[in-house]
């Protein structure tokens, strides 16, 4: 014990340096994590102290709620389409932007990164204005050429709204994987390419046999990050459609927000923070499970490839 206290005293400055961060970390990360789990067992509108203990009822109700599964399915459609499309475009674009012969590199970088450094909430608003304007022009042309009979209200039509949201999400987030890929490409040894060229490899060969394997480690990180990020989608849906029309674009993020602050939106449901926390926790566990699966799958694929002759 004496030795312990001596050790503590010796590091007194370290504690002074750590304590502010540790307090904020415990207060705003650890405590909220623990207590949001506790809320999931109560009926609670957010006023006063949670008293109405309901056990696992919220979890059971969520598992039975078709609106949750609708939001769940939409979230996975969003991520399932966005991630592969965004990563493919980002990789090709990164290779082009990294090429030595390219002029105006810096201008192009600013162009493709600009949606990333701007606020999703505000850009989402601008895009919804634009989609009304451009959308009505496009559907006017489509009607004139008799490809469709009636003008389409792109964000107001349950059949098209989700695709608009996905396209905008892909556009807004493209810069992140692009930046990671660019950084990864810059780390590749140029001599690999020179050697392959001497052996008569073409540009496509260089891409598949040198570029792709070399940035695979970065690619795995990017895949994980973009998947997690897109499963947490909220801002863009909230400002563009609020989950509508008729829940066609509702994702788990907006489902939770709706239940936490406004109630079910159907029938006479009230705001219920207990229910919302349960939905959040349920989704959090699922997402964690998925990322574990993803890591395992990537590992398996890597070892499988190595084992092949």
């Amino acid at each position, binding site marked *: 014990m004496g030795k312990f206290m001596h*050790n*503590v005293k010796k590091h007194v*400055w*370290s*504690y*002074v*340096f*750590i304590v*502010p*961060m540790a307090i*904020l*970390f415990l207060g*705003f*990360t*650890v*405590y*909220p*994590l623990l*207590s*949001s789990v506790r*809320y999931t067992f109560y009926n609670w509108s*957010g006023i006063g102290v949670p008293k109405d203990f309901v056990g696992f009822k919220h979890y059971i109700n969520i598992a039975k709620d078709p609106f949750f599964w609708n939001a769940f399915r939409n979230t996975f459609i969003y991520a399932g389409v966005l991630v592969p499309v965004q990563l493919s475009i980002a990789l090709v674009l990164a290779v082009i932007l990294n*090429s030595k012969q*390219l*002029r105006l590199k810096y201008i*192009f*970088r*600013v162009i*493709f*990164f*600009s949606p990333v*450094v*701007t*606020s*999703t*909430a*505000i850009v989402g*608003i*601008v895009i919804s*204005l*634009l989609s009304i*304007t451009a959308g009505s022009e496009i559907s006017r042309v489509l009607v004139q050429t008799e490809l469709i009979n009636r003008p389409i209200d792109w964000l107001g039509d349950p059949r098209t709204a989700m695709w608009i949201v996905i396209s905008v999400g892909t556009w807004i987030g493209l810069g992140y994987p692009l*930046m*990671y890929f*660019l*950084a990864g490409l*810059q*780390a590749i040894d140029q001599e690999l390419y020179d050697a392959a060229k001497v052996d008569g490899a073409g540009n496509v060969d260089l891409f598949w046999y040198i570029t792709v394997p070399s940035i695979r480690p970065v690619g795995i990180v990017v895949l994980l990050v973009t998947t997690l990020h897109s499963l*947490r989608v909220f*801002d863009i849906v909230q*400002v563009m459609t609020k989950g509508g029309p008729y829940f066609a674009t509702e994702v788990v993020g907006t489902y*939770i927000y709706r239940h*936490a602050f406004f109630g079910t939106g159907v029938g006479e449901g009230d705001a219920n*923070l207990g229910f*919302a926390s349960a939905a*959040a*926790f349920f989704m*959090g566990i699922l997402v*964690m499970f998925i*990322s574990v699966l993803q890591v395992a799958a990537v590992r398996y694929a890597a070892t499988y490839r190595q084992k092949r002759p």
Partner: protein
Amino acid sequence: MKFPSVRRALPKIFIHLALIVFGGFYTYPFLWMVAGSLKTRQEFFGSRLSLWPRQAIWENYREAWESAKFSVYFGNTVFVTILSTLLVVILTSMAGYALARSSFPGKRILVGVMLATMFLPKGYTIVPIYELIKNLKLLNTLWAVVLVNTATSMVFNSFLFVGYFTTIPKELEEAATLDGANFLTTYLLIALPIARPIIGTVALFEFIDNWNSFFIPLVFTLGRPSLRTLTVGMYALVGESATDWTLLCAAATMSLLPTIILFFLLQRVFVDGIAGAIRG
């Protein structure tokens, strides 16, 4: 002699053309927004997709700045962003330094818990955070936004600093200690100046994150419109003057421009920062 060089130049020209066309489509929403902000209402609805206003007018900006209160929102955003960014840089560089340079009792537990929370689902812990802010009597203040934005950036950035400090050699600091410098002066006079690149990266990313933060200020300023930040103000403006599109365009341009300019000026820091994060 001319022919082969033309044939070699062709793919290059093609790639540039393709990039310009794609880049044009890519930035079209921004250009359309800026053009819209400079048009009169009549012109806007007459030439809805055009990018060139017949005559640039600044009336929309004046209206957004004054009657739509964007001057207030701008001030609030600057306040929140600068304060949170400063706090994050100071607190996480200190914590990162201590974690990297000393092995105090309790360090392993702390690092373990910090790592664990990075992988645990948190995204939706806003409710207990709201309760905490309420108990601290900070509800409907800008301090709430500063505090929550700062606090939720602690773990990731502390680890960035830990990563940086463990890669730089200790010799200079050890020499300083022999000369009688204590932990604090070593940190201030030796470690911090060496850490300039990582400070730049953290500060830049934090600045942009805080400027664009939407959900936190939305929740904590619901009851007090005068405390709105630009993102929340923009969201509210859509509800209030949904039909006044040229005003919306001007307000959006004003809100988005600072981070785009910042990125344009400091893009090296960005790419280097990301490259550093990958290596680390």
